């Protein structure tokens, strides 16, 4: 466990200013096997202390790559000086932040280290299975990754806590040639919150997922280009999760609302069909832990769920303490920092569209001419709500039946227009947690959703 060098420094906090002192250790482990070649075999550790001070509407921040009492005192002095500098030159003249009732959030779990050999042997076992069983692949990669953050958060006027957030994943990438001779790839992540030995006990447990990925790749070998245009589609759970995060989530982060996002004038207005409810879950959803639970943020705010859209009406934003004060709303624990040297930013946690009442097979059967889109490679969105997702796997739907597989394509739309076209929502959902959200700093996030029938623009030939 991280030794605490910050909690006894509260007496040094400046009076009349909101102050955060954070000690943090981040670790990452990664093993990459490409065609059986060990191309990556890395371990990294990063730790240090940072301080942030809020004075009359501006922040001063400083950090050092050292964990000690003297480092804590030095970053605190520098952060105070930086805040005073900004106040003197910029002078926004805002008052103090509202106080949050103090409590102490204990460490939920300890992060145990894993020997590098275990990652390598696990990756080699998966690679041997793929190489032995599937001779017609043109390429294969197995990546084992574990990252973790351990933080001690100490605040002047909020909760304190010692929090640990490990996650571990295995990524499988399979490649083959299409029937026309072009190279194709498909990718599948497995894993989530927790250390490697909790999530991965036996490589054989992943074999069925590799087999399923291979089967999809074989369908894709025979794939066709989507017809470009405005189409009726069924978005699978991974795509509706991406939609929740990229296309809606970012526009309702309060800092982006202040930066002019489309959600500013849309508050309390209809932005989706009444079948759509969208929540940024903190640590528990549907009676189970979320993919990446968050209990306390880095401003000392206890994490609770943020309801963003309820039955199609935009209900609120995600906040830091400062933005919550600006909008007269309640902070719900969204201010998070990636590294010890990063300041907290408004970030999503586990953002999801809630399931509905339709059966997936009924949704597919209802589409006369469209597409069923399953997997995504990446997504981007704009503050206007215009989004783009790469689609790596999908199928045609003709007269209610699944048809040929699709080659890689892209879908796009404007979130608050597209969500109004949602007219069927499946009763099951899928979660994903293997990626990073990028917004000045990277951040692990969860996202999820049910299958949605809706209309989007699809790229193609």
């Amino acid at each position: 466990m991280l030794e605490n060098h910050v909690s006894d420094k509260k007496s040094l906090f400046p009076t009349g200013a909101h102050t955060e002192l954070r000690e943090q250790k981040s670790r990452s482990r990664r093993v990459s096997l490409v065609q059986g070649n060990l191309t990556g075999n890395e371990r990294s550790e990063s730790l240090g202390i940072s301080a942030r001070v809020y004075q009359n509407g501006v922040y001063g921040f400083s950090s050092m790559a050292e964990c000690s009492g003297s480092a804590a005192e030095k970053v605190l002095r520098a952060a105070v000086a930086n805040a005073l500098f900004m106040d003197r030159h910029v002078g926004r003249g805002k008052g103090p932040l509202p106080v949050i009732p103090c409590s102490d959030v204990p460490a939920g779990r300890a992060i145990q280290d894993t020997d590098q050999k275990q990652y390598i042997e696990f990756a080699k076992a998966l690679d041997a299975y793929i190489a032995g069983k599937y001779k017609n692949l043109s390429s294969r990669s197995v990546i084992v990754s574990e990252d973790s953050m351990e933080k001690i958060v100490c605040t002047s006027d909020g909760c304190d806590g010692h929090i640990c957030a490990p996650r571990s994943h295995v990524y499988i990438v399979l490649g083959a040639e299409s029937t026309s001779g072009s190279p194709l790839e498909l990718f599948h992540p497995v894993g989530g919150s927790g250390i490697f030995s909790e999530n991965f006990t036996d490589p054989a447990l992943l074999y069925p997922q590799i087999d399923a990925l291979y089967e999809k790749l074989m369908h894709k070998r025979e794939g066709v280009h989507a017809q470009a245009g405005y189409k009726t589609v069924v978005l699978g759970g991974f795509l509706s999760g991406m939609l929740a995060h990229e296309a809606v989530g970012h526009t309702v982060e309060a800092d982006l609302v202040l930066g002019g996002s489309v959600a500013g004038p849309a508050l309390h207005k209809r932005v989706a069909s009444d079948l759509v409810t969208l929540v940024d879950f903190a640590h528990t959803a549907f009676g189970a832990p979320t993919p990446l639970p968050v209990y306390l943020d880095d401003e000392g705010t206890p994490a609770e769920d943020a309801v963003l859209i309820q039955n199609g009406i935009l209900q609120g934003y995600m906040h830091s303490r400062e933005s919550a004060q600006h909008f007269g709303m309640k902070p719900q624990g969204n201010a998070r920092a990636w590294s010890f040297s990063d300041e907290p930013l408004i970030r999503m946690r586990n953002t999801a569209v809630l399931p509905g009442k339709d059966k997936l097979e009924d949704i597919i059967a209802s589409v006369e001419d469209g597409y069923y889109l399953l997997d995504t490679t990446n997504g981007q969105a704009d503050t206007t709500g215009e989004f783009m997702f790469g689609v790596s796997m999908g199928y045609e739907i003709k007269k209610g039946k699944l048809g040929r597989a699709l080659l890689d394509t892209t879908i796009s739309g404007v979130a608050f227009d597209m969500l109004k076209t949602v007219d069927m929502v499946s009763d099951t959902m899928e979660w994903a947690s293997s990626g990073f959200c990028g917004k000045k700093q990277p951040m692990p996030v969860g996202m999820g959703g049910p299958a949605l029938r809706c209309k989007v623009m699809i790229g193609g030939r």
Partner: protein
Amino acid sequence: MDNSIHMEKSIQEDIREIAHKTGERLREAGADKAQYTVTETQTHEFNVDGGEFSLFRTLFGHSLSVTAYKDQKKGSASTNQFDDSAIEAAVRDCLKSAQSGVADEAYDIAPAQESGTFRDGAYEPDIDLFFQRTRELMRDIRERHPKILMEQMIVSHDQTHKIYRNTNGTEFEAFQGAYAVSLMFSAHEGDAATSFFGSDICTDRLDRPFIELGSLEKDLADTEAQLSTVPVEGKFQGVILLTPGSLPDFLGNIIGNFASDGCILDRTSIWLDKLGQSVADSRITLSLCPGDRRIVCGERFTRDGFRSKDYDLIKDGVLKSFCLSLYVANKSGFAPAGNSSFALVVEGGDTPYADMVKSIKRGLIVGRFSGGNPSVNGDFSGVAKNSFLVEDGEIKGAVSETMISGNLAQLLNSLVAISRETVENGSSVLPYMAFDGVVISGKESGAQ
């Protein structure tokens, strides 16, 4: 400037001493070969959010990264702690990882080379003048581009002192410092709002207003001009004119899909057998030039420990090199790349930008591309953001919800023209480039 913000650096060790200790520990631990880099950094950064100053931060960092080889097995470890036990742990972790690894004859380090010390840019910041230039930029934008709302502006001075050593006796040392200005903005008027746009500058001089650097002034004006949009009717094949802002995405995908480590190692690159052959229009020369005088604080030595050299990836349309690390070079039999940077340089052509626009029968000026990861074979599709419709040589207006799709390899052979003008933003030197044969589709094409 108040001196109190300059935190004392008593904790910062002499990184030469850290390098020495690391070498000693590696020798004691029995590494056959090794390379290691010790870095110390200092950052002074101002943030603007929603158009107002929000944060001033000063960061003091350091790091040690070690790669060691034992019995032709390789392991890597990094730490940001410099005490003796942390150095020892990093070396131990590194060797232990190597011993757990897979032996491969292709693992190697750079040979002995003449050592070098490099000093680039503005190593010591002038924080007072930097802050004044930043305030001046905010004022210039307010006065000259009143419809612009600054979502976020991050300006920083980044100082890096780095030492690289390997067990073949090579040592490089670099002292670099530069000012970075990164803007994210959109335009607003009444209920109308544009997509956000990002513009970046890297400079080592503070003698000119920031708004005059790179393409910042044009980017702001173009974004304001995107407030009113015109519909794109139907689906058609047309010309895309890529700006110096959108070009790096396309060139980066071309390098990633056809010329980089991953696609050469797994042999999925469609250029695998094209070295020395034509892969592009003969007017295209694409180079990676960290040593170019227009690149600020470019890379001086590679991640593998070679002294960086500028090189042509494509010269007069012919593929001259791949962008390979030493490992993949050894594995594939191709030569390692001259550098490991992304300092793109494409020199200007012979067509004025205005004439390029006039020559377009139907197409788009693409300011930003928001696309899915291209297929391994180079097929791409995505949204043309911050883009303008051109018909019969005239800019008709900005577009929304318009997609483009094509193939990256075919694009290089469908060049229409390269602009005479180039944009130098400190990180790259790029012109405007127009390509034909791209599928452009508007929402109206299949609206139901």
